[in-house]
């Protein structure tokens, strides 16, 4: 069923990216903190998982949470650094962070140099190797978990704290929100999700190298996040799906991926910064009219 595999592969990639973008969405969409280096966290998760399974022989099921944890911890570091930085300095720092991380991946032998790490094993569940549809099932399960996490976040005081920081940091302080603590959390949680995605990515592709996590990938993740709609639950997966599917549907776009990502970013930011599903967006208004017309409340 070669054709079927094609769609399964596509879905798997879409969901893996969606998870990383959901993390970015939490940092940027909810807490309003610019992060132009999300790919670095994806890489941290991927390499952690790769090293733990190939060099230490640990099981995927142990490596997965540890990958999220390692990214989470580095996220705490970046978050701590972010506290004292204004938005433009912060943006520069996250870019620098991406570059430093990739340089580290390329430089130290444990990461496999320019070739990276290969032979990353598939996860094994009850003696069965998870491939194809089964792997998609795994990724889907993690995706659903992240959606639930996101839904919970939106409803909790944590989410409220994030949003107050995004809207106005000083006012947030004045109502008792310790901006320092929550900025650290915003980066850490966003990073942790990317770490999860990284692990799933590594065991899907079965090989990872520094080049998978360069700055251009951060821009790709950013464009997915902005396209879908910053601060929404389903924006990330929509953005991810569109950006991955477009070059599949329009073959010529394949060679021009980065042009596509950047052009989309530029156009969106210029004309519809809230993204496709964001507050007051064209799509959201149309959906509201439709649902309203069908008799559902707003």
């Amino acid at each position: 069923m070669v054709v079927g595999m094609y769609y399964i592969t596509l879905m798997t990639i879409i969901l893996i990216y969606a998870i990383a973008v959901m993390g970015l969405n939490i940092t940027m969409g909810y807490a309003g903190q610019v992060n132009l280096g999300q790919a670095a966290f994806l890489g941290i998760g991927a390499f952690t998982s790769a090293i733990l399974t190939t060099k230490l022989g640990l099981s995927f099921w142990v490596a997965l949470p540890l990958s999220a944890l390692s990214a989470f911890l580095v996220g705490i570091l970046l978050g701590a650094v972010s506290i004292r930085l204004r938005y433009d300095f912060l943006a520069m720092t996250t870019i620098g962070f991406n570059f430093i991380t990739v340089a580290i991946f390329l430089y130290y032998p444990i990461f496999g140099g320019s070739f990276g790490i290969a032979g990353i094993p598939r996860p094994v569940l009850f003696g069965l190797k998870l491939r194809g549809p089964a792997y998609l099932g795994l990724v889907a399960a993690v995706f659903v978990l992240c959606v639930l996490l996101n839904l919970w976040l939106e409803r909790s005081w944590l989410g409220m704290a994030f949003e107050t920081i995004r809207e106005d940091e000083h006012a947030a302080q004045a109502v008792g929100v310790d901006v320092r603590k929550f900025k650290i959390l915003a980066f850490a949680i966003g990073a942790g999700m990317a770490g999860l995605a990284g692990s799933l990515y590594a065991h899907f592709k079965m090989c990872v190298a520094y080049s998978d996590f360069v700055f251009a990938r951060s821009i790709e993740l950013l464009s997915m996040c902005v396209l879908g709609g910053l601060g929404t639950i389903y924006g990330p997966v929509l953005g991810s799906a569109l950006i991955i599917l477009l070059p599949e549907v329009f073959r010529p776009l394949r060679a021009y991926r980065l042009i596509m990502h950047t052009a989309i970013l530029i156009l969106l930011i210029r004309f519809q910064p809230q993204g496709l599903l964001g507050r007051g967006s064209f799509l959201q208004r149309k959906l509201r009219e439709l649902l309203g017309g069908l008799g559902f409340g707003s």
Partner: protein
Amino acid sequence: MDLAADKAILRTEGLCKYFGGIKALDHVNIHVRRGEILGIIGPNGAGKTTLFNVVSGFYKPTRGAVFFMGRRISGLHPAKIARMGIGRTFQVTRPFKNLTVLQNVMAACGRDAYFGLSFFRKYRTPEVVEEAMSIIEDVGLADYADQPAKVLPIGHMRRLEIARALALRPKLLLLDEPTAGMSAKEIEEISGLVRRLRDEKGITIMLVEHNMRVAMGLSDRMYVLNYGKVIAEGTPEEIRENPLVIEAYLGRGYAAGS
């Protein structure tokens, strides 16, 4: 000397705030008595908002200290000071623009939830909604509860700021020019609200005001600042006749003739 200072809910001691060469606050000693409405007036640039910023923790004092209910609070993080019971509004309003009025106030109801690790809980509980709504009704914004804050006209934005500060259950409320930009009718309403907050809820209020009528009408006691120094203290009547105050506002020539 101050017996009165012992009933002080807030006290500053030799408070200085310098920005490079500029002395925004210069050895300011004031105290605020529990349950009073204290007015802070002074010409532009006198240091009134700087005083608020230092008290609420947004600035660290260059020298001196601030004591709240006997505890030294100067140098503490603003979020901690807010939690200790000092609420404030801002001279230029800072609403959470894209959140609704109700959410703006609920945000402040977080209080203890933001500390430690209890931020896991859901925020939109019936208790919290009820508490927020009652505050919103108190300030007269009930009709706007579900509107995003950015659509509010200026008068309502200032009410929202007061509502948000109230949700902290403060013992001391710092109001920074709460009536600026309002119509005469709105000023009446806000003044009434301020009085009610003190009379019915026992909140001590510190008020910075440019509108002299409002300041004198509301305050039990006042301080006058000029160039970062306290130049006068007293009841509104005393302040009205104080030649130093008149000089500060109108210049030397007028003081002699009053």
